[in-house]
């Protein structure tokens, strides 16, 4: 008995401690083993950069100064590369001009002097093959780093379409799991802006316009700093199936997949007795979509009986729409033993322009934790009614005790 009580005491203390500790750290991520992230700046050195419309100076001069400042301020750990496009071919032959892109600083720890010399020698010259430059940059970054970011800086739209650089970006994003393109427009016109917004949206990046040198420098620095922070996890790639029987069996962790508009994707998770399944699904809106949309994630048994669903819908501009669910078998004795649970991810997107493009990026996060027990009725009370009832009960007990004592004393004295 004593042992049992003591174990309760220690258990209570442990739980209290873990409750307070457990809530504060956001997550214990295994960052130590991941590689540092890499970033490559892609600068447009096409003929249009000669235009002198930023604070009275040419776009090229401003861009060069901004690059020098960024290189000076680079953190030591940053793995950076620089690629240019339209820098060497000054002729009119489109076929040749559209192959004009070179990497002037290889990806790695930056040699400041070499990088600055390479930047200083640039002269605005040729065409603007953005699509090709993106492809080549993706090749430069292949197999390196845990997260790969491209910062594209340009003042004009692609003069080498087809291929449309936006399609190229979507295709590159669909190949790798972790390529993000941030775009920066230098005094952009409408066409350039639309193209850059499309590229950044397709890869989950950001778009910004720079009208002055200060804006340009600040934004590049911000993007490079952001790229230097590794994401907490590199999601594993998975391919959901068309039905539950063939669905991949997933352990706890973060996954990435692609889902077409209107497609259903199935995954399986083994949930032991006494465990709770937690799943969240995010679908990135990587293309122009009709105004209203939604995402649905359902947990079902293998034979198709729905257990619980999570859903969210929204409208207007957004980068991602997500839903989540919790499920534990405790409430379902028939399912309490180890059973496979099917997760079905579906969406209600509609797109007029890019419905046939590769699927939209899905991020699936699965966790299995100890199931929480439904609480019993409260062991303690509160409120004035409780006080009143206790007071009356005390009064009645006191009177009864008094009478009993009187009766007992009387009979004892008589005897």
């Amino acid at each position: 008995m004593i042992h049992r009580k003591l174990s309760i005491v220690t258990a209570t203390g442990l739980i209290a401690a873990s409750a307070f500790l457990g809530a504060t750290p956001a997550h214990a991520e295994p960052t130590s083993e991941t590689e540092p992230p890499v970033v490559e700046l892609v600068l447009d050195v096409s003929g249009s950069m000669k235009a002198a419309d930023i604070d009275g100076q040419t776009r090229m001069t401003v861009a060069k100064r901004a690059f020098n400042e960024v290189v000076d301020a680079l953190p030591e750990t940053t793995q950076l590369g620089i690629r240019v496009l339209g820098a060497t071919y000054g002729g009119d032959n489109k076929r040749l001009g559209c192959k004009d892109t070179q990497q002037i600083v290889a990806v790695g720890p930056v040699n400041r002097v070499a990088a600055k010399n390479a930047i200083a020698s640039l002269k605005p010259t040729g065409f603007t093959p953005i699509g090709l430059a993106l492809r080549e940059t993706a090749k430069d970054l292949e197999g390196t780093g845990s997260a790969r970011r491209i910062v594209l800086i340009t003042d004009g739209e692609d003069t080498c379409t087809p291929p449309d650089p936006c399609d190229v970006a979507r295709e590159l994003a669909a190949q790798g799991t972790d390529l993000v393109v941030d775009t920066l427009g230098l005094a952009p016109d409408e066409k350039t802006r639309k193209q850059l917004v499309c590229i950044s949206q397709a890869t989950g990046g950001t778009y910004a316009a720079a009208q002055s040198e200060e804006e340009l420098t600040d934004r590049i620095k911000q993007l490079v700093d952001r790229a230097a922070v590794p994401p907490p996890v590199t999601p594993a790639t998975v391919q959901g199936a068309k039905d539950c029987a063939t669905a991949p069996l997933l352990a706890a962790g973060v996954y990435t997949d692609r889902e077409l508009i209107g497609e259903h994707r199935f995954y399986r998770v083994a949930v032991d007795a006494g465990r709770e399944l937690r799943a969240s699904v995010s679908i990135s809106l990587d293309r122009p979509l009709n105004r209203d949309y939604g995402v649905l994630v359902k947990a079902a048994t293998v034979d198709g009986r729905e257990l619980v669903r999570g859903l969210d819908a929204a409208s207007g501009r957004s980068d991602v729409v997500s839903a989540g669910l919790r499920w534990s078998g405790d409430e379902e004795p028939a399912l309490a033993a180890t059973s496979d649970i099917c997760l079905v991810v579906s969406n209600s997107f509609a797109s007029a322009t890019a419905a046939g493009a590769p699927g939209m990026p899905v991020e699936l996060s699965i966790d299995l934790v100890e199931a929480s027990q439904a609480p019993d009725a409260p062991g303690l009370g509160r409120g004035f009614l409780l006080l009143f009832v206790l007071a009356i009960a005390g009064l009645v007990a006191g009177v009864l005790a008094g009478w009993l004592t009187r009766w007992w004393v009387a009979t004892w004295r008589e005897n």
Partner: protein
Amino acid sequence: MRKLLGLAVLGMVLLPAASAFAADPTDGPTPLQSITSAGTSFLTAVAIAPEQQVKVSAVTGDYLYWQFPATAGQRPELTIDVALPATGRSGDHSWTVEVFDGLRRRQACVGGEQSPVAKTTDTTLQLGCRLRQVRSWAEPWDGDPLPGTYYVRLSSTELPEKDLGLPLDVTLALKSPTGDTGADQGELAAPLVPNNQPGKLLASAAPTTSVEPEEESSFDFSMDWLPDFSSRWVWTVAGGFIAAVTGLIGFSWTRRRRRV
């Protein structure tokens, strides 16, 4: 002996609770480092804490993500000030601040201006969101706010396409006052904190022999016995005192009658 042990158990429960009140993170004079960045997705959301200064430069059209932890009984409240771009705006901008829990489920704002519209002439914009009180437990199919991580997303939902990419500044303030937890029953076994580890494909139904449950079940057993410190303890103990006092009064009534 049993009484003594019972007292010891009560002490063990009351002490950590009391120390938790004393060690409230908001009362310390240690100034928290100010935050100057925001994430661009749920995974890269930047962690912030209550009373921490957050000032970020961004551009129109950015999606800014932050995350903060919350425990049962707290009522997190966000106040966001946006210094809008001074030039270059051509129309109204609709803004929104959204809060999601650790499972990325949307949480309702019960106070504050969640989705204001900035007119072309406005120079600043204020957004706010107060969450419901965080519960200590909820049914799995329920959307109540639970202890764990919360995500904040600030974005503009409607704006003219040509206004994208203009520079602006965002200031965010988070307050998490703690309310009374006594209204709640039950305990969430694990807070809603995302499990950020790379996923693993299993070949087949791997026999995950879980050794923990036996150990865990004794944990739950003990929690059923003793609730955390809350106002219920005060009410119940006060009720016991009142009952004892009225008991004595009742007893004295019978004795007085006997004497007279």
